[in-house]
C-alpha cells in the first residue's frame, strides 16, 4: 500500500474501490463516499443512511477487533451494484480473524455500552456475510436491496 491513508479508484460508474489504513478518523470520509455512491445509484435517503451506518459499524469493528487498534492495518473496500441494482459492499481486512461462534448479536434487553455493531449491520442491511476461508483476514459482504425497506 502507498503512503496515502486512503486511496480511491473509480473502476466504473457502478464500481468504486477504496484502500485505507485502519484509522477511525477515516470512517467519516468513507461514510461520505458511500453516501455519494449510493445516491448516484438511485438509493433513497433512508436507504443511504442505513448503508452509511452499516459501513461505519463494519469498519469500526475491523479497526477494533481485526486490527486491535493498530493504525497501519490495510482495509480494501469495494462498492458496486449488481445486475439487480442492489448495492454490494465488500470489506477485506488482513487482521485477526474473529471466532465465528462469537459473532452473535447481543440481547437488546441489556442496557449497556457496546456490542451493537453487528446487530445494527444485520438490521440495516439485507445480507451480512462473513467469509473466514481466506488465508489471511476476513471478507465481509454487505448487501442493500434497492427500495426494499425492511
Amino acid at each position, binding site marked *: 500500500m502507498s503512503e496515502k491513508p486512503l486511496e480511491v479508484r473509480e473502476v466504473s460508474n457502478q464500481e468504486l474501490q477504496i484502500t485505507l489504513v485502519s484509522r*477511525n478518523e477515516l*470512517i467519516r470520509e468513507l461514510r461520505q463516499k458511500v453516501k455519494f455512491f449510493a445516491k448516484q445509484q438511485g438509493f433513497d435517503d433512508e436507504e443511504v443512511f442505513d448503508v*452509511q451506518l452499516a459501513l461505519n459499524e463494519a469498519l469500526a469493528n475491523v479497526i477494533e477487533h481485526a486490527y486491535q487498534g493498530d493504525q497501519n492495518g490495510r482495509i480494501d473496500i469495494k462498492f458496486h451494484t449488481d445486475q439487480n441494482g442492489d448495492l454490494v459492499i465488500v470489506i477485506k481486512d488482513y487482521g485477526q480473524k474473529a471466532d465465528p461462534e462469537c459473532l452473535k448479536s447481543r440481547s437488546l434487553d441489556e442496557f449497556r455500552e457496546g456490542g451493537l455493531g453487528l446487530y445494527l449491520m444485520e438490521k440495516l442491511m439485507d445480507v451480512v456475510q462473513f467469509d473466514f476461508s481466506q488465508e489471511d483476514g476476513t471478507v465481509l459482504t454487505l448487501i442493500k436491496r434497492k427500495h426494499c425497506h425492511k
Partner: protein
Amino acid sequence: MEPTIEKQNDVTIIRPAGEIDTHNCDSLKDVIQKALKSGAKRLLIDMSQVSYLDSAALGVLVSGFKSARESRAQFKLANMQPPVAKIFQLTRLSKFFDIHQNSDEAIASFK
C-alpha cells in the same frame, strides 16, 4: 464540533453537534462527566444539532445515563432528528432513556 454547555436555572443543557462517531465521541463523554463532577443534578442532552451517530456514540449516552444515575442526577434527551431517533428505536434504547420531543417539554419534566 465540541459540544456546548448552557445553564438554564438548575438545568445543565449539553448540545452536541454534527456527526458523532467512534472517532470524536469522547468529547461528548468528557463534557457529560465534567458536568456531573461539577455537581449537575439535572442534565439535558439537546440532540437538535446531531445529524448522525453510531453505536460508539450511543455507548457514550448509555454511560452518561448510568453515571448520572450513580450521581443521583436526572438525565434526559430531547430534539432528536428522525435518523437519530431511528437508531434509538432500532436498538430499543428508547425504552431506557427519558426522551422528549423538545427542550421545553424536557425542562418542564424535571422533578
